[in-house]
């Protein structure tokens, strides 16, 4: 009857059209209090459109949005409750860091001393005390983004929106800031939505990920769910590395891959024998250490190519005797050394049944 907790943000059947083109179609989504949600997808999937609809910057064509029990569907941004950080930082270049952070506070008839105290507290929070008198151009990209974050949090909004906040930064800074933002969010408990096209970012930061493609939501789930049990070939392909192999359903939860019979768990229900299917398996899930020939889902494969990627090797393999089946497997450096894996060597590999995903069609 009554749910454990009511959603903080409710998006119902939201569609946004630009002319005849629908950028997002009939989106439904619930975000809970204090949750960190990532909208993940390739460029043009509609993730930013959805964010801007939630902010009221580009109001949806149809559909309803509710925040904290209040219908905000048609409200201009000024009448909503959110803070926002953009990829470009959008810091006011002619105002100091202090003035930037104080910008939203000065408009609320706060006492000067209170404003100063609050700004100092925020700059402390984002790890930039004493930087108040500087101008944005005197800061590095990462520092500017911290200031933008402090500015967005200054008015204690109920909802924090982050539009690709890390995309303009160097790889190293990005990693550090990723961690810092997540920490900050956990500490403050502010409900947060972040838009990103970087799957790694989404996997490491989000409590839940919303994977979007061509204006619709493909899957909503925790990072682990999304990674382990992708709901569609698109999600499987977009997140992490994935082998896609054409196979045929064999009935009773099995698939046939060019004569090799494999038992699989996920996705074989209700598939008639002989149906063409796509078998998905991550390279790191393929095992070869201590696999006896004749073990379940085991078969012989030849190493066609071996690519050194630093912490591991990515091997291209072909099932023995089946030249046109190529798949990739990640082997640790230890494993390669221990088993003497090299190009041309034949290995016995196994596809663990609980890691195989099967989708109808090819």
């Amino acid at each position, binding site marked *: 009857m009554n749910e454990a907790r009511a959603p903080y943000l409710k998006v119902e059947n939201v569609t946004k059209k630009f002319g005849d083109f629908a950028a997002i179609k009939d989106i439904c989504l619930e975000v809970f209090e204090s949750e960190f949600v990532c909208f993940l997808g390739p460029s043009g999937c509609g993730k930013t459109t959805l964010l801007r609809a939630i902010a009221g910057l580009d109001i949806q064509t149809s559909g309803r949005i509710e925040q904290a029990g209040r219908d905000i569907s048609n409200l201009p941004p000024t009448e909503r409750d959110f*803070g926002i950080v953009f990829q470009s930082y959008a810091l006011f270049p002619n105002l100091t860091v202090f003035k930037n952070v104080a910008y939203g506070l000065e408009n609320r008839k706060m006492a000067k001393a209170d404003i100063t105290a609050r700004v100092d507290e925020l700059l402390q929070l984002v790890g930039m005390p004493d930087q108040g008198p500087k101008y944005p151009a005197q800061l590095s990209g990462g520092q500017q983004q911290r200031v933008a974050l402090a*500015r967005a949090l200054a008015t204690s909004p109920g909802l924090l929106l982050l539009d690709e906040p890390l995309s303009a930064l160097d790889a190293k800074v990005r990693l550090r800031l990723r961690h810092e933002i997540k920490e900050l969010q956990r500490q403050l408990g502010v409900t947060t939505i972040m838009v990103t096209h970087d799957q790694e970012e989404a996997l490491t930061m989000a409590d839940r990920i919303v994977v979007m493609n061509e204006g619709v939501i493909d899957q909503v789930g925790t990072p682990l769910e999304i990674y382990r049990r992708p709901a569609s070939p698109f999600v499987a392909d977009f997140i992490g590395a994935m082998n896609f192999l054409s196979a045929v359903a064999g009935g009773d939860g099995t698939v046939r891959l060019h004569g090799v019979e494999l038992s699989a768990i996920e996705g074989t229900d209700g598939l008639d024998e002989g149906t063409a299917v796509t078998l998905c398996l991550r390279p790191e899930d393929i095992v070869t250490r201590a696999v006896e020939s004749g073990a379940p889902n085991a078969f012989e494969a030849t190493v066609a190519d071996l690519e050194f990627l630093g912490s591991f090797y990515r091997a291209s393999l072909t099932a023995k005797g089946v030249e046109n089946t190529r798949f990739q497997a990640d082997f640790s450096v230890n494993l390669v050394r221990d088993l003497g894996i090299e190009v041309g060597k034949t290995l016995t590999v196994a596809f663990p049944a609980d890691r195989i995903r099967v989708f109808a069609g090819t």
Partner: protein
Amino acid sequence: MTDGPQAGVIEAPLVKPKVGREDWVMRAGLAVIGVYLLVAVVFPLYTILSKSFQDERGTFIGLDNYAEYFATPALFYSINNSLTVSVISMVITVGLAFGYAYGLTRSCMPGKGVFKAIALIPILAPSLLPAISLRYLFGAQGMIKGLLMGETIYGPIGIVIGEVFWTFPHALLIIFTALSLSDARLYEAAEALGASKLRTFFTVTLPGAKYGLISACFVVFTLVITDFGVPKVIGGGYNVLAVDIYKQVVGQRNFQMGAVVGLVLLAPALLAFIADRMIQGKQVALLSARAVPYEPRPDRRFDLAMLAFCGTVAFIIIGILAVAQFAALVKFWPYNLSLVLDSYQFDLMDGGSWGAFWNSLKMAAWTAVIGTAVIFTGAYLVEKSKGFEHGRGLIQLMCMIPLAVPGIVLGLAYIFFFNALGNPLGFIYHTLIILVLCTITHFYTVSHLTATTALKQMDAEFEAVSSSLKVPFYRTFVRVTVPVCMPAILDISIYLFVNAMTTVSAVIFLYSADTQLASVAVLNMDDAGDTAPAAAMGMMIVYTSATVRLLHFLLTRGIARRTQAWRKR
């Protein structure tokens, strides 16, 4: 009630965004700008169009005026004349400006900064001034009239020389920019592939500057065909369209025929404008963000050749101005060469007075202040407001029209519109207000484009951020947009000020006894035979514009030091 392909699916009700207080402020602002442009641009132009179809009593007579125009050889020959001098001036100016800009950008000659500054001086002068100088140089008692080998300066030769002087900086600025935006990597590639210097010039340099050259051609052509000052002073019996309008209106009081000639003049200006816009639309950014700017390498012979060329051009520019100043100081050319200040007794001259000079200063100051405020705010609203697409598109279009309208046509249109019986704005007729209004309108487009460019360079999300912080947009406009755009705002105001000082064509019909202007005084004193005082007044305009430019330069630098500290790292 027809169902689409998804029969049975009910269309979701559309969300109607709530119009907040800020939206109302923004819409009201747009409406004000829209009404302003209607009154300042569209209505007057409509009036001049309708006048051309009426007789002197205001009865509609269809194309009769046009039939009369084309049946009068003395009138329609001017079309040919106007086109001839415009095309010749265009070819010469663009050729010279290209050579000059080439020297500034591709050689290592010394004194580039000085050469660039000299080349821009003619912008500070009314077009009447070079024409007056030419009289002293090549007139009946000219200093070097022998150079003309018996030809008279009063006619196409004088017009072309005067126009080349006056339009040179406009062409130079455009071509200079086009040549500056070249990618050194293309030159390195050409060199690596073994292309000769000549081949590199034709395959890299010219294509890169193509759009700049085309644009410069259109600009010069339009400036010449619509200019009134040079042909008025030095044209002699060689009639051109812009002077014909003046003669019809001021000489013969034939307003209808003035309107007809005005529309005939509008046609080529409009065509050049549209063609230029279309070509600009095709231009893609040649310079990617990764381009490496070209650095010329010293080449003694080439550098000396460019120095000689630029030196000659600069000498002629300075020479023409020096002659005007000399003429203003000489007691009685060519018989008494003692230098006196008699010519500065403007109050004793026919058609001039010091009052006119002060009026000009006042008018230019008001134009700069009001014009900058209106134009920048208007550009901001068009650029940054949301929704209202059609209305904004229409305003944008209205902002572009003034560039295509010759000043003299605009001035005539203002007479028709503001002097019409029953116009509630009629009270501004014969006041300083109408001069300010007309001048702002005349120079609206370039200022608008400057403002738009600056606004486009600002982060598009400033407004989004401030609305998320619940700060109204107008507060952010004052606290962020205006300070960040201050360099562009100062550029606009100086552009308006200098043009208001020098313009003749837009205001020649609109001044009254109380609101005479310096540039008009130059014309009137020259008309009355007081050529030396006319030269003196012309030089006063040059000095004023130059002083204001210098002040602007110092101010910009000062402001940059104080308030734009954030620009530097």
